[in-house]
C-alpha cells in the first residue's frame, strides 16, 4: 500500500469524522472515539496507516498547545493560589506512585535501577486524556478538575528532574556505560534555561501586547493566527533546545499572556489546532497498540495494566483524603488520573536510548500505557453512571465556586453605547468581560482601567473563550446591524442558555432583533431623543413631569408599534414580501410610523392629573372624548392645565426615522 501525506491525512480525518460523532452520540466521549478509531485503522485491524509512531511524535504537539491554552486561562495570581495542591497532591502522587510501582518491579526481580525508572515513568498520568475528558464534561473548573490539574502540572514539572535522574541510574549501574552529560555543564545549562524562561516572562509581559496590537490593526485574521502559532512553536522549540519540557514552556507563556488583552483571541486561534492535533495524538495511541504482544502474553499484560491502574487509583484516593475535596470529587480525581501518560512514551524511548531498560520490557510497558489510556474513558463512564449518582444528594449544597472568575456579563462592542452599559454596571460593582474588534478603541479604553479584549464576537470559539458558557447575559452593542444579527445568530446557536440584550441601530434592525427572539432591545437614539424632546416641551412652558410622562408614554407607544410590526410580519404570510425587499420594508415602516403618530392622543383631564395616554387607531379618538366631555364635575383639582393640546404636537418625535432612512438609502439603490 502506498502512503503519502494526503492519503494519510484522509485516513486519519475520515477515521475521526466517522468515529468521534458516533462515540459522542453513544455517550462515550470523544477521547474513546479517537482511540477506537486509531485501533481500527491501525496495523492490526484495517492496517490503513503504516507507522503511527512518526505521526504520534508530531501529534504530541497537541499536548503542548493544550498546556498553552490552559496557561492562558490561569492568571499568575490563580496559579499562586494553586501552589499547595500542586506541590502537595502532585508531589505526593509522583513520589508514592514511583515508590509502589518500583517496589513491585523489585518484587518481580528487576534490578532496582530499572524498577525505579519504571516507577517514575509510570507515575505520570496522561495530561491529554485527563484534561480533554474533564473539559468535555465541563469539569475543568470544578474542585476535582482543579485538583487533577494541579497534579498534572506537577507531573509536567517532574519530567525535567526525571530526564536528569535516568542517566544517573545507568551510571551507577555496573553494566552501563558512564553517561556523558550532554554537551553543556550543569550550571551553564541552568543559566541558559533561566535566561530563556526570563525571556518568555518579560517578552510576554512587555513585548507581546504592542506586537499583537500592531498585527491586529492590519485586520488580517490569518496573520494573527500565524503570529499565535509562531509564538507557541518558538517557545516550545526554545524549551526543547535546552532540554526542558516544551509543554511546560508554553504553559508558562500562556500564564504570562493570561493578562494580555489578546488572550481570548489567542485562545480561539490556537484552539482548533490543539483540538486536531490532540485528536490525531489519540488516534495514533490507538493505532500503536501492539496486539501481537497482547496475544503473546495476554494474562501478563492484562495483569500489568489492571495492576497499574489499581495502584495509581488507590494512591490518588489516599491523597484525596488530605485535600478539602468532597468524597464524590475524590472518585473523579482518582479515576481521571489513574492511567499512564504520553510522557511515558517519550521517557521509555529515552531510557532505551541510554540502555537503561531492555527493548522487550519497553514494548510490553508501552502496550500497558496505551491500554491504560484506552481504559480511562471507560472508567470515567463508569464513574458517571454508577459512582457519582450515589453522592448526588450530598454534593447538592456546597458546589464550591472553585476559581472560576468568569464574568456573568459579556459586552460585545465597546463603542459609545457599550461603554454606557459597561460604566453603569461597573459603577454597581458588576464586572464584565468586554470584546471589541477595534484595536485603537481597546488601547484608549484600557487606559481607564477597563479589561477589554480584542475579538470579533461572531466566532463562537472566541465567545467560548470569553466565558459565554458561564455567562448569564450577553450585551450585543456593536454599531452595524448586519454584524449584530450575525453575532446574535452565533450566540443562539452555540449558547442557547444565554440571555441576549441588544442595541438596536434603527427601526428595521429593531424588528429584526425582535424576530430573532432576543430578550430585550433598546434603540440607540430613541431614549435620548425623547428626553431632549421632553426638555423642549418644558421650555415651551410645560411642567417637566408632564412633559417627561408624555415622552415616556410616547416611547412605549413606539416600542409597542415595533412589536406589532414584528407580530404582523411573523404571523401573516402575505407580508413575506417585506422580508425579501428590505428597503421597501424600511420605507413602509416609516410611512406607517408617521401615520400612527397622527392618532396619538394625550390629554389632561379635569379629574385626575392625567387622562390615559392612549393610542387610538383610526378616527375613534373623537368618540372617547365625547364620552367624558359632558359630565365634568370637579372632584380633584387639576394643578396645571396646559389647555387642550392638539394631536399634532406629538407627531414630530419620530426619532430614528431619519436615521433609518439614511441608513437604508443605499439599500434601496
Amino acid at each position: 500500500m502506498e502512503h503519502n501525506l494526503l492519503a494519510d491525512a484522509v485516513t486519519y480525518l475520515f477515521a475521526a469524522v466517522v468515529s468521534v460523532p458516533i462515540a459522542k452520540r453513544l455517550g462515550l466521549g470523544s477521547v474513546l472515539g479517537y482511540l477506537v478509531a486509531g485501533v481500527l485503522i491501525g496495523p492490526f485491524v484495517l492496517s490503513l496507516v503504516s507507522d503511527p509512531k512518526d505521526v504520534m511524535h508530531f501529534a504530541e504537539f497537541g499536548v503542548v498547545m493544550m498546556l498553552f491554552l490552559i496557561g492562558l486561562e490561569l492568571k499568575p495570581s490563580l496559579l499562586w493560589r494553586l501552589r499547595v495542591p500542586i506541590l502537595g497532591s502532585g508531589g505526593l502522587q509522583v513520589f508514592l506512585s514511583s515508590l509502589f510501582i518500583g517496589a513491585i518491579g523489585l518484587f518481580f526481580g528487576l534490578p532496582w535501577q530499572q524498577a525505579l525508572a519504571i516507577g517514575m515513568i509510570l507515575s505520570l498520568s496522561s495530561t491529554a486524556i485527563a484534561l480533554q475528558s474533564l473539559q468535555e464534561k465541563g469539569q475543568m473548573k470544578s474542585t476535582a478538575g482543579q485538583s487533577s490539574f494541579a497534579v498534572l502540572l506537577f507531573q509536567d514539572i517532574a519530567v525535567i528532574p526525571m530526564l536528569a535522574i535516568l542517566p544517573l541510574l545507568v551510571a551507577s549501574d555496573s553494566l552501563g556505560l558512564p553517561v556523558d552529560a550532554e554537551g553543556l555543564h550543569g550550571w551553564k545549562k541552568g543559566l541558559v534555561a533561566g535566561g530563556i524562561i526570563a525571556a518568555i516572562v518579560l517578552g510576554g509581559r512587555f513585548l507581546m501586547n504592542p506586537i499583537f496590537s500592531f498585527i491586529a490593526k492590519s485586520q488580517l485574521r490569518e496573520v494573527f493566527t500565524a503570529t499565535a502559532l509562531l509564538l507557541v512553536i518558538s517557545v516550545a522549540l526554545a524549551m526543547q533546545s535546552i532540554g526542558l519540557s516544551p509543554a511546560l514552556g508554553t504553559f508558562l507563556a500562556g500564564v504570562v499572556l493570561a493578562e494580555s488583552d489578546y488572550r481570548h483571541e489567542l485562545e480561539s486561534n490556537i484552539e482548533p489546532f490543539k483540538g486536531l492535533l490532540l485528536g490525531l495524538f489519540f488516534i495514533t495511541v490507538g493505532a500503536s497498540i501492539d496486539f501481537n504482544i497482547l496475544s503473546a502474553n495476554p494474562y501478563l499484560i492484562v495483569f500489568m495494566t489492571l495492576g497499574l491502574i489499581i495502584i495509581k487509583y488507590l494512591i490518588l484516593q489516599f491523597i484525596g483524603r488530605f485535600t478539602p475535596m468532597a468524597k464524590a470529587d475524590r472518585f473523579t480525581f482518582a479515576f481521571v488520573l489513574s492511567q499512564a501518560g504520553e510522557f511515558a512514551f517519550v521517557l521509555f524511548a529515552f531510557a532505551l536510548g541510554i540502555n537503561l531498560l531492555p527493548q522487550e520490557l519497553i514494548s510490553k510497558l508501552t502496550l500497558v500505557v496505551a491500554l491504560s489510556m484506552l481504559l480511562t474513558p471507560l472508567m470515567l463512564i463508569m464513574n458517571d453512571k454508577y459512582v457519582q449518582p450515589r453522592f448526588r444528594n450530598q454534593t447538592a449544597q456546597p458546589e464550591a465556586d472553585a476559581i472560576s472568575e468568569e464574568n456573568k456579563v459579556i459586552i460585545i462592542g465597546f463603542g459609545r453605547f457599550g461603554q454606557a452599559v459597561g460604566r453603569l454596571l461597573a459603577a454597581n460593582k458588576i464586572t464584565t468581560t468586554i470584546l471589541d474588534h477595534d484595536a485603537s478603541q481597546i488601547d484608549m479604553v484600557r487606559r481607564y482601567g477597563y479589561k477589554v479584549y480584542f475579538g470579533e464576537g461572531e466566532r463562537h470559539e472566541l465567545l467560548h473563550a470569553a466565558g459565554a458558557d458561564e455567562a448569564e447575559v450577553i450585551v450585543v452593542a456593536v454599531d452595524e446591524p448586519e454584524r449584530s444579527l450575525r453575532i446574535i445568530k452565533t450566540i443562539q446557536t452555540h449558547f442557547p442558555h444565554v440571555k441576549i440584550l441588544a442595541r438596536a441601530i434603527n427601526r428595521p434592525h429593531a424588528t429584526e432583533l425582535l424576530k430573532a427572539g432576543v430578550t430585550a432591545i433598546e434603540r440607540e437614539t430613541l431614549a435620548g431623543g425623547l428626553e431632549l424632546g421632553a426638555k423642549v416641551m418644558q421650555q415651551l412652558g410645560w411642567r417637566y413631569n408632564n412633559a417627561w410622562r408624555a415622552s415616556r408614554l410616547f416611547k412605549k407607544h413606539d416600542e409597542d408599534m415595533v412589536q406589532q410590526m414584528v407580530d404582523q410580519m411573523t404571523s401573516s404570510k402575505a407580508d413575506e414580501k417585506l422580508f425579501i425587499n428590505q428597503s421597501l420594508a424600511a420605507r413602509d415602516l416609516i410611512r406607517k410610523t408617521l401615520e400612527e403618530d397622527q392618532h396619538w392622543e394625550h390629554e389632561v383631564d379635569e379629574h385626575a392629573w392625567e387622562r390615559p395616554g392612549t393610542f387610538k387607531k383610526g378616527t375613534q379618538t373623537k368618540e372617547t372624548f365625547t364620552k367624558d366631555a359632558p359630565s365634568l364635575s370637579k372632584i380633584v383639582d387639576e394643578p396645571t392645565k396646559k389647555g387642550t393640546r392638539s394631536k399634532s404636537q406629538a407627531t414630530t418625535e419620530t426619532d430614528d426615522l431619519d436615521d433609518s432612512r439614511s441608513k437604508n438609502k443605499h439599500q434601496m439603490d
Partner: protein
Amino acid sequence: MQPVLLILTHPNLQQSKVNRHLIQQAKSLDFVTIHDLCEVYPDGIIDIESEQRLLAKYDNIVFQHPFYWYSAPSLLKEWFDLVLQYNYAYGPNGNELKGKNWLSVITTGGGQMAYCETGHNRFTMAQLLTPFDQTAHLCQMNFLTPFIIHGTRKLFEDKSRLIQTSQSYVDALTKLSLGAEPKAEPEKEKEKEVHHNPENHPANKEA
C-alpha cells in the same frame, strides 16, 4: 375558584424577607396572578389603559404592600391617582369596578401593640386605613377585612410564627378565591363594625 389579581407594591422587595416569602407562597397558588408594580413600572410611568384592561379580568383584587408613613408606597398611590379615574372607577358612569372585592394585605415593621390609642402610633390600623376603605367605597368595591402582618422585622427569625402567618396568608387568598368573603351589604356593615373596634380587629388575631 375565581382568579385573584395580586397587585404588589414593594419598592425594596430584595430586602424584605417576609414579603419575598409570602410572594413565594402566593406564586405557588395557580389562581393568583401577581402584578408587581415596581417591576412593571420602574420609572413610575404607569400605563393607565393596560392597568384598566387588567382590572377588567378580575373580580378579586389584592393590594399587597408595606405600610409606609401610615399609607401605601408612593407608586401605589400614583396608581390610585391615575388608574382609578373619573367615569371609570367612580362618577356617574364610573362603574367598571363595581362589586369587585378589595383585600389589602399590609405588612408593618412595628408590633401590633403600637397600633392602638395608647400605643405610640396613637391610632388603630382600622382608623389609619380609612382612606383605603373610602377609596374602595367610592369605587363601589367591597373593602374586605384587611390582612395585616405586624412586627415583620422580627417575623422571619421566629419560624413558628412565620409558618403560621404564611399559612393564614394562603388561607386568606384561598378564601377570597372561593368567594367565601361576604359581599352583601348587611355583611359589609358588620365588617365595618369590626374595623372600628380595636379588640375585635382581625389584625390583633394575627401572630
